[in-house]
């Protein structure tokens, strides 16, 4: 500030700083209002996680449901699984969700392979991706025969 600072300039300064304060309060209020509106809306957009009531175990089929050298899709929680009865009478269970773009795969009895119809991906019976676009193997589940029931378990992480 210089020496010839006048009273009029002083009051002008005071006015502009008052105006500035009002602008900050009003603008801050508007922004606070918008945030308080948008925050709940943003949270509302996020769908709650689906409760997977399927657990880690499911009865995939009964003895005799499958012919040797065939497969069927079963429900494992909210996702499909693939149960295969090999020609030698052993069972195999894998995730039926193709690791490429999520189509549901099927068992090809003519090839004795798992095949995805969407982009012609194939997996062997151990779930390894052997040709086509799939980037990863399919998850393999444990299978137990308990009396008449064929029970599929998710493998424990280990």
């Amino acid at each position, binding site marked *: 500030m210089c020496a010839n600072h006048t009273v009029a300039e002083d009051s002008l300064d005071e006015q502009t700083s008052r105006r500035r304060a009002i602008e900050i309060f009003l603008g801050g209020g508007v922004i606070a*209002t918008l945030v308080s509106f948008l925050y*709940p*809306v943003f*949270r*509302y*957009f*996020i*769908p*709650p996680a689906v409760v997977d009531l399927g657990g880690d175990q499911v009865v995939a089929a009964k003895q005799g449901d499958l012919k040797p050298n065939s497969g069927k899709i079963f429900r494992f929680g909210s996702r499909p699984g693939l149960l295969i009865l090999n020609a030698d009478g052993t069972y195999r269970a894998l995730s039926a969700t193709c690791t490429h773009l999520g189509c549901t795969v099927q068992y090809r009895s003519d090839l004795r392979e798992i095949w995805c119809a969407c982009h012609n991906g194939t997996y062997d019976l151990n779930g390894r991706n052997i040709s086509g676009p799939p980037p990863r193997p399919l998850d393999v589940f444990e299978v137990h025969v308990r009396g008449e029931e064929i029970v599929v378990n998710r493998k424990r992480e280990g």
Partner: protein
Amino acid sequence: MIASVVRWLDDRLHLEGLIAPLSHKTVPTHRLTYWYFFGGITLFLFVVQVLTGILLLLYYRPGANEAFESVQYIMTRVQFGWLIRSIHSWSANLMIFTAFVHMFSVAFLKAYRKPRELTWVTGMLLLFLVMGFGFSGYLLPWNTLAFFATKVGTEIAGQVPIIGRPIMIFLRGGEEVTGATLTRFFGFHVAVLPGIVTVLIAIHLFFVQRQGMSVPPQVDAEWTANPSARKEMKFFPNFALRELMAWYVAVGTLGVLAALFPWELGVKADPFISAPAGIKPEWYFLFMFQTLKLIPSKVWFIDGEVLGILGCTLAGLFWVMLPFFEKDKTGLIVTASARSSQIRTLTGGLSVFALAYVVGMTIYGFLAK
């Protein structure tokens, strides 16, 4: 930054020309100016309804087997779902309330008179449609109260001679209130009514914009007698900012109501249980409901129900036509006594009667067993 964006747009779209009429618009300033706010508040609440309604559509599923569960899901599982639904329900009720306040203020201030007859008629149509929103939306959670309210409401429509029954079947999507009714009401509520109401609001606002704000006859008389008392404020920003404050109050009210009194969901509708005791419609239908209850079952040779419905319909029609019955008795010379003579006109008395009747019957309906 904002200024340069506005300039950029203005260069290309000539927005100045669009905004110019708004900047010339003025609002008369007098002791009754605050009544002008209620139309704007109603409009604001309608916008709240549209926005929260769209949000509810993200999770709501129409259908007798899913509707209740999906609303339950919104209320309990979705983050802030209870808030969105409660605001939608409270805002609906507040909107109908402010629409009624707006209507009666227009009636008392005689703002419906020439040249504003059509503004009044479009406003009345909007009020009926808003009540239709309330009626159709009430069923959507598919709870017991809503189920029976819809049963009774559509049954009343069915009592009208000749055309009643086809209307009832059209509304219900069959003989009974079922999932088919729910699907229909959902369609009315989210597609048919919003479309019609949006167009009507545009027309209503266009009329208001064309004709400017009405000055109540009392104030007009005073201003004519003493022209220096005439005062106006600019619509933008003076009135608009005041209106904005009113909207803030409305938002605050909504927030408090929704947070402290979240809207109840009730019990899932079951068509094969008895109606619970003390069942009543929403408050804005209560005055008609109570009227119907008071009429004896037979009046002379006419069914009481039919008489009540015809009576309500005729009264409603008369009310819509109100501006066309009014004769402007005030000449060019307005004296102090002209004011009292205006108040004593028939329509003035009628407005007082209508308000007293609606309020009285609503309170009676609340208290009645």
